[in-house]
């Protein structure tokens, strides 16, 4: 009796084994199919989303080379029949626009304010991340609290302030008031704090001054963050509108967005969409170039979560 049972159980165990193996094969084949399906779906979804994301850029570029009659065709041409670049020429020739001067002004303001802002940000972030002093935490909390206040609020008082300094219609007024960004300080402080404190102590033991330590250790380690701060700041200068319009709206100091706005609002009448698109494309181009060359740094800087080593 017991012999038989044992036999049966042995055979069944064997069958079970083979069945399981077969199942495994089936499962793996099925898994493969599922995997391929899932991957296809993923690519399809991402492809569609990418198209949606890209479409406005495409539409801007395509529209900028169309003529108005082609632009308003009931069935739009996806590839323009006429490649009409005269809009671009017109953007540059526009007497009200003075694009070259605008570019130069914007670049100057952007570069100088970025450099100064970086220095201030690095020093402040270092103090918050590494130095111990009385009131540090309170001060930092206060800074963070100012971040919650909508910045638009500062405009009128700041205007009074810069005027009493005699800074109107100078580059100073475009650069100085917004040199400090609590957000950048916060960003860099977080980054600095990920550098182990022992590195600082080690440097102190080795007789490194704070500034040298900053320069030789902290800055290289936080470089991606610094680069992304640089880009953000440059983008800020490139896109700023309200403040420059208010405080430095003379030709010698006017910045690009304002220039565009002034030129297009004072032009009477017709909404020439292609011309408008060409102007936007020209103004957007430098940012795209920066992005193309520094993509790695921008993306890494923003998403970087820790340092190796």
């Amino acid at each position: 009796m017991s012999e038989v049972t044992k036999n049966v159980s042995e055979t069944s165990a064997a069958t079970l084994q083979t069945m399981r193996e077969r199942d495994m094969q089936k499962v793996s084949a099925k898994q493969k199919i599922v995997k391929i399906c899932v991957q296809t779906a993923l690519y399809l979804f991402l492809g569609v989303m990418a198209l949606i994301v890209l479409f406005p850029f495409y539409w801007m570029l395509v529209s900028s080379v169309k003529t108005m009659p082609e632009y308003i065709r009931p069935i739009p041409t996806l590839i323009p029949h006429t490649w009409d670049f005269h809009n671009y020429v017109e953007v540059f020739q526009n007497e009200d626009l003075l694009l070259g001067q605008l570019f130069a002004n914007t670049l100057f303001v952007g570069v100088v304010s970025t450099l100064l802002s970086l220095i201030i940000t690095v020093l402040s972030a270092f103090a918050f991340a590494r130095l111990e002093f009385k009131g540090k935490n309170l001060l930092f909390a206060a800074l963070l609290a100012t971040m919650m206040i909508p910045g638009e609020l500062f405009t009128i008082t700041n205007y009074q302030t810069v005027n009493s300094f005699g800074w109107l219609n100078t580059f100073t007024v475009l650069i100085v008031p917004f040199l400090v960004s609590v957000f950048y300080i916060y960003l860099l402080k977080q980054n600095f704090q990920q550098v182990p404190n022992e590195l600082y102590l080690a440097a102190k033991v080795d007789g490194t001054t704070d500034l040298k330590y900053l320069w030789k250790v902290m800055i290289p380690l936080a470089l991606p963050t610094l680069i992304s701060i640089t880009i953000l700041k440059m983008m800020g200068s490139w896109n700023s509108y309200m403040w420059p319009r208010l405080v430095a709206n003379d030709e010698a100091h006017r910045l690009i967005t304002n220039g565009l706005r002034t030129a297009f609002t004072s032009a009477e009448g017709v909404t020439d969409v292609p011309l408008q698109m060409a102007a936007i494309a020209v103004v957007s181009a430098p940012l795209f170039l920066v992005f193309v060359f520094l993509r790695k740094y921008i993306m890494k800087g923003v998403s970087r979560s820790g340092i190796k080593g």
Partner: protein
Amino acid sequence: MKRILSTLLLVAILTVGVCGSLTSCGGGGTGGGGGAAADFEMPAGGFDTNTPITITFYHSMGAGLRDILDDAIADFKKLYPNITVEHQSFGDYDGVRDQIKTEVAVGNQPNIAYCYPDHVALYNEAGAVQTLDILMNDATYGFTAEQKADFVAGWLAEGAAFGDGKMYSLPLSKSTEVLYYNKTYFEENDLDVPTTWDEMEAVCRAIKAKEGDKCIPLGYDSESNWFITMCEQLGSPYTSATGENFVFDNAENYAFVKRFRSWYQDKLVTTKTLNSNAYTSNLFTGTATTGTRSYMCIGSTGGTVYQQPEQVNGVYEFEVGVAQIPQINPNAPKVISQGPSVCVFKKNNPQEVLASWLFVKFLTTDINFQASVSMNNGYTPVIKSAIENEHYQEWLATAGTSNVQALGVQMALAQAESYYASPAFIGSSVARDQVGLLLSACFASKASDAEIDAFIKSTFANAVSECKYQSGQ
């Protein structure tokens, strides 16, 4: 979080403390030209022709006009070598107003600026505008009797329409609204140019019946002007500088709004706002190239140049005609008076004010400048001598489709007796904006015939309360 909260609390406490101490010293940071400065007193030695002096002029001139201004400044420099005039364009009138408004708040206003009457009222809230009576009547530096007489009288008087009888601004150049029409089309179709709104409706319906979907017979650029002009023509209340300011909420006004709305709904008319914020001249001249055309356009004489059709093989697509805008009563026509005036701002240094005055006097009395501006863009000169000037008259004589500016000026001069101006007070510009908005809102409303009266009524009421809110009442 706790820490942030406690910080905020601290900030709040500090703030209340600081506020308490600040309430008493409100305008502490303001410099020259504040309200405390009394009326102008002529400096003892007269104008100092030795000390270099720089004055600033804010305007909204485009590139073409700026060249003319530069020439005028060069001419002025020959008369007064020690005065340097710097000028800057702020795109449009609102740009100038916003800039000066902020600057007045810190006592840093320019010396001279383009202005509309309600801008003057706004600046005057801070007492920043220099009254010109003493300067104007000064034996040495003021207008001569001839110069004073040279001004088109009605326009000069507008500068003193601020309730106290004092002179706050001088007219620089003038514009008005006229009816541009497609002369070729009108002649081909044997249409009469409308002189009343009833005729206008008939003409529009006739054109619409003929042209169908590809046509909106009439474009009216400015909804605000349309509303205000209708009030003026009908004699219905619009605004009042005294007592209740905003009095345009009345049945008479409902009626014309409702009437014109039906025009819009029947695609007989469009306005700038409802034409996707594009001047309706693009429909008139066909530059919109959307296929839809208009055959009449009511717009400013300041924008006449945009009413000029494109040339094909050296020939204009059609001939442009200019006429008075339609009236309620053609025997007593009413047309709006517009265009930039200039005002002078108070400064602590009387020499600066005097220099500003001299420049303003120069701009308003210089035939060359006055005529050049007019010839450039169709504005009307404010002095008769410029109008009667030989060269100018020659230019006027060439009026036609190739010289539309002159066409506009001719019309503007022809109706010199019909101009009106609305009262200026704080909030008059708000009222202007609001009536324009309410007109286009009623036009665009999808309300049914049963609902429309209620809709119009509530839109008017909202506009009045908005006026009151925005003007700080």
